[in-house]
């Protein structure tokens, strides 16, 4: 393992996190009016709804700082320092205005569920696309190739949430094979038992299928790469040397065709986590995406910013792991190439 490569990637991950936190700070200030103003309005309207009299300015400022970690009466650089200090040192993302609970508690309760469906969607989507792509390349210009090519072009033109809606209509409403929404059956006791886990998998199936549509576009890229590799001279040499077909397929074709798709996968990680917001809303799957959606509806800015920061952190960790393991797979990368 090359330490230079490792530290470069680590630095990149830290930079991304710092940028996101700074961005959320900037966005608080970019809100129409100042953050204090707009939050005061939100808090006041909530107070009025609950009917608890008037609030004086100092108390309002204290409440703004409790909710957002921003002290509106301090100078800007002090605000910024305190904001970062709160997040990095104290691990606090503020307090949800609507639920009146710490944002971190609300989000971390839901992160495992979002991770669960996203990771499965990623794995299934990419494995399928690599598999289909290589079979298509091996059977180039056959009927299978042309049929699945057109199928994938067709699927590429359907947004994943429309796939989700159609799945709900066909499999959940017309045939009642799968549940309509939620993450676990209402009468299933939580715990480490088979029925509970079955119910979880059952509820996750449709969201996972609709999210994995995002990865399928890779099949055509994989096909292109594999066709190109299949035409290379070293492959002919390999078969002349009498190597086994399976060895040629995995070691020669597979490896050389998959490596160029690396960047696409990396962008895909962020894309799949992104899609959680829409997919979870359609399937009423209570993950971070649905939390974020509810935060928009209730104008719960601390929760909204917190979700963005957590979404980014999860993606950064995912990409960092992919980066580091990629160094093992492709020795050229850890040797420090900058061309890719």
């Amino acid at each position, binding site marked *: 393992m090359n330490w230079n490569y490792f530290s470069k990637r680590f630095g990149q991950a830290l930079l991304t996190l710092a940028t996101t936190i700074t961005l959320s700070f900037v966005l608080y200030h970019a809100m129409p009016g100042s953050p204090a103003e707009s939050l005061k309005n939100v808090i006041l309207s909530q107070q009025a709804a609950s009917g608890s009299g008037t609030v004086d300015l100092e108390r309002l400022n204290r409440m703004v700082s409790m909710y957002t970690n921003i002290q509106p009466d301090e100078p800007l650089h002090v605000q910024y320092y305190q904001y970062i200090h709160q997040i990095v040192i104290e691990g606090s993302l503020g307090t949800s205005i609507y639920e009146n609970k710490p944002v971190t508690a609300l989000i971390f309760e839901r992160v495992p569920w979002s991770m669960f469906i996203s990771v499965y969607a990623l794995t299934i989507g990419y494995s399928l696309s690599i598999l289909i792509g290589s079979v298509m390349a091996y059977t180039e210009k056959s009927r299978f190739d042309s049929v699945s090519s057109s199928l994938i072009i067709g699927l590429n033109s359907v947004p994943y949430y429309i796939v989700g809606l159609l799945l709900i209509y066909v499999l959940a409403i017309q045939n009642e094979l799968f549940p309509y929404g939620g993450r676990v059956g209402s009468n299933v006791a939580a715990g480490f038992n088979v029925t509970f886990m079955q119910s979880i998998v059952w509820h996750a199936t449709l969201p996972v299928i609709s999210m994995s549509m995002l990865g399928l576009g890779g099949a055509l890229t994989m096909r292109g790469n594999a066709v190109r590799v299949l035409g290379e001279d070293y492959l002919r040499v390999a078969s002349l040397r009498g190597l086994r077909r399976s060895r040629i397929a995995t070691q020669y074709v597979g490896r050389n065709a998959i490596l160029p798709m690396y960047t696409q996968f990396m962008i895909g990680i962020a894309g799949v*986590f992104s899609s959680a917001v829409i997919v979870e809303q359609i399937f009423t799957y209570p993950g971070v995406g649905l939390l974020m959606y509810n935060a928009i509806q209730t104008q719960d*800015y601390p929760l909204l910013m917190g979700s963005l920061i957590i979404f980014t952190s999860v993606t950064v960790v995912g990409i960092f792991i992919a980066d580091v393991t990629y160094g093992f797979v492709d020795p050229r990368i850890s040797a420090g190439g900058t061309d890719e």
Partner: protein
Amino acid sequence: MSSRDDAVDLEELFESSDEYDPVPRGERLRRWFDLSVLAPARVAINDWRALIGTIILGCYLVVGTVGVIVVERPYSDVAPRNAPPFQNLDYILGTDTVGQPIGALLVHATPAMLKMIFAGAMVSVGLAALVGLLSGFMRDTVVDTVLMSITDVIITIPGLPLVIVLLAIFAPENPYMVGVLLGLDNWPGLARTVRSQVLSIREEAYVEASKIMGLSTLTILRRDLLGQLMPYITINSALSSRRIIFESVGLYFIGVLPFTTFNWGVMMNMAYQNHALTRPDRLHYLLFPMVTIFLMSFGLVLFSQGMDSVFNVRLQARHASTTDGEVTADE
């Protein structure tokens, strides 16, 4: 033909053109026209994907400009409520729960969509080309490092949550503004592609030659690189347009964007809220917007695929056209 042969050919070309007179301007213009307009057009007509894609996109363009004038703006109760499709010529696609003809709703949502796509594609492709070109050309300088760091940071931040936060705070109603915001998270992938293309092209002899001749960076960028990169940019404009459609319709559908204009996503949202999934007599209200979105993205995908093969053929035919002046498409 493999790329290795190509490289060898180019080197030979470079060596043999040491004492080469510049080609007259008229001839250069004719060659340029042949290479970048005639040849792609000829191949495009032969490539069914590019042809169909262009026709579909053309239809949407006509609907978005002329269709809006021909078809009346829909209002509530201009037609009976919940009418099924294909029954009456006045509202051929049926009507929704408040009696608006669905066909008219679809047509009147098109212009805003086109504006959104235009703004989004311009922003994402423009930024990508700018960043990729600059960074590729100033390889290993501070500019390159800074630009690529920014690109990597934006690649990593999940686009949709970021866009949602931006939309929640600024609540834009202007379709151009929505398009710009959606385009903002879209450029980094293409910027990286452009950069690596620039890195490989700038190793080629003619760029090297321009440098030795003392041409400025800007001139080299404009004359030698941009032309080579145009195909990538065209293809990626189509793909990022598709992404803008997906994202904007999705955000209208879940109700994050304000419901101020006609939009296919808004229609889907209304249909979904009115239980179109569980009531068969309302299913068409949800289905037709879906088909509309599918067809438009299908057109864009076909167009980009077709352009891709046009571009590849052109690469292959580059040497062929100088030897026998014939562009042949191999399928």
